[in-house]
């Protein structure tokens, strides 16, 4: 039973319920005519179309990179794959054990200390006392937190939180690994150490889905790239092809809009 991912016609809409005024609604709707993603659905509710018409499937051994500008729907797509957001249209199926590294805060409680947060994550992965104890030691050693491990997370620097989250997430070896771009951030000294550990987890996973802005990472890790634009798939294929098309477009239009006019 090999791992696989099947996504058919996936659509995710975010409803806008709270704090909306008529005027806000009208402004947004007027803009919608210009092709924005804020629309009214069939029940006359204002929704943001985060991703739509996403169809792809991945088999064991495939390593997918997702590229796109901020707000293109990369994170929403990853969250939908992780099962956080259930489809508003279409279908998502994933076979195999799953670990999603989505955001650094990932269910961590800022008031609890590092040890307790690690214990909670262990419970989430159905570990017993002994496993949690070794999980805690592993995370503490790797994240280099020292005495901070016994202090509440709100006393941590943002780098320490990333290190803790990274150490926790990479201690689990899944078959399907979903990873958002922040995992590749972090201070330089930690990065080289993290690289090694991350690569071993990535190698161990049968399927990787990675969202990133860093072309180098995609070139070295991915066998396939999907380029998202405005929540739709703009291109899907070989990393070199898609990346060159993507970087052409971003250089031309988005960073220098005036270039498109001339």
């Amino acid at each position, binding site marked *: 039973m090999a791992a696989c991912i099947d996504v058919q016609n996936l659509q995710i809409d975010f409803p806008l*319920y709270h704090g909306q005024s008529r005027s806000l609604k009208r402004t947004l709707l007027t803009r919608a005519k210009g092709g924005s993603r804020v629309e009214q659905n069939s029940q006359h509710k204002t929704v943001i179309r985060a991703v739509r018409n996403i169809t792809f499937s991945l088999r064991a051994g495939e390593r997918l990179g997702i590229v796109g500008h901020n707000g293109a729907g990369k994170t929403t797509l990853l969250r939908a794959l992780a099962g956080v957001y259930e*489809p508003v249209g279409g279908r998502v199926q*994933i076979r195999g054990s799953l670990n*999603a590294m*989505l*955001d650094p805060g990932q269910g961590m*409680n800022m008031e609890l200390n590092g040890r307790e947060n690690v*214990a909670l994550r262990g419970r989430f992965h*159905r570990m017993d006392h002994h496993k949690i104890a070794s999980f805690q030691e592993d995370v503490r050693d790797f994240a280099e937190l020292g005495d901070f491990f016994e202090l509440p997370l709100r006393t941590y620097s943002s780098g320490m939180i990333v290190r803790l989250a990274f150490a926790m997430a990479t201690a689990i070896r899944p*078959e399907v690994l979903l990873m958002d771009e922040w995992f590749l951030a972090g201070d330089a000294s930690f990065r080289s150490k993290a690289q090694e550990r991350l690569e071993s987890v990535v190698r161990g996973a049968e399927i990787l889905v990675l969202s990133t802005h860093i072309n180098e990472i995609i070139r070295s890790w991915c066998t396939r790239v999907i380029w998202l634009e405005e929540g739709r798939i703009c291109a899907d294929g070989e990393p070199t092809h898609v990346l060159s098309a993507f970087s052409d477009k971003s250089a031309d239009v988005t960073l220098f809009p005036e270039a498109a006019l001339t």
Partner: protein
Amino acid sequence: MDLIKHSQMAQMAGSRGDEANFAIDLRHGLGLLARHRMACKDVAKGIELWRLALTLSWLDIRLRYRGSILGPFWLTLSTALMIGSLGFLYAFLFHTPIRDYLPFLTLSLILWAFIATIISEGCTVFVAAEGMIRSMRIPFSVYLGQLLARNILILGHNIVVIVVVFLAFQVPVSVKAFVAVPGFAVWMIDGVAIALLLGAICARFRDIPPIVGSIMQIAFYVSAVMFKPEFLGKRGWFLLYDPFFTLLQIVREPLLGVIPGYATYVSALAFSIMLCALAWYTFLRVRHRIAFWV
């Protein structure tokens, strides 16, 4: 580093039958029956994660009292103070001997606090867990279990007050007290149901918690929490139609050595069944939307 190995994870997934081979299998436009299956799966997985719920609830309490010397026993102390001061005043107002009234009031107030807290925290059960809901796929039933476990732990701290009062006034505890056990089991189920119902509705409509708050305040004064139902005499007929009252009775009365009447049980159970049905139906309808609402 290999804390969870592939084989183990695969085994866990595989042991749950063919359908469970999918770690994620979600689609749009499910029928009611399929939604029912999804909801059942949520509950089953939530029960598997009971240790997580328990750990979360224990940490909640630890967090609330971090740095305080008495810790959770502040709850015990403040309950004791409240009962001590109110008990004597109301025994005087109602012209009842304190020996009769104080044990009754102690039980009433502590049990009511348990119900009222579950209901008011039920309103925020999903909204408060926003961070976790949006970052990981965790069964929603885990948050309900966390809420229930936390309140049972708090009730456990308050039981000290009941024991002290019962000993001080030498209240006879008979075998009949065991009749409270099935009553409390009904409470557990109702507690999960009401938290589920209110948690889901309140995530979508943020005006509900204040409404719930004012209903609870009225219910507190009407439902014979502070006064014994006998005080109302024949005018107390309406109490049988008050679910708060009948549910309170099926746990409180046996502990005081009285078995509640047939009608009380019928009313309490009928209400419980309606509540559970409504909560389950709501869960079927909105489970997949909660992540978008919180």
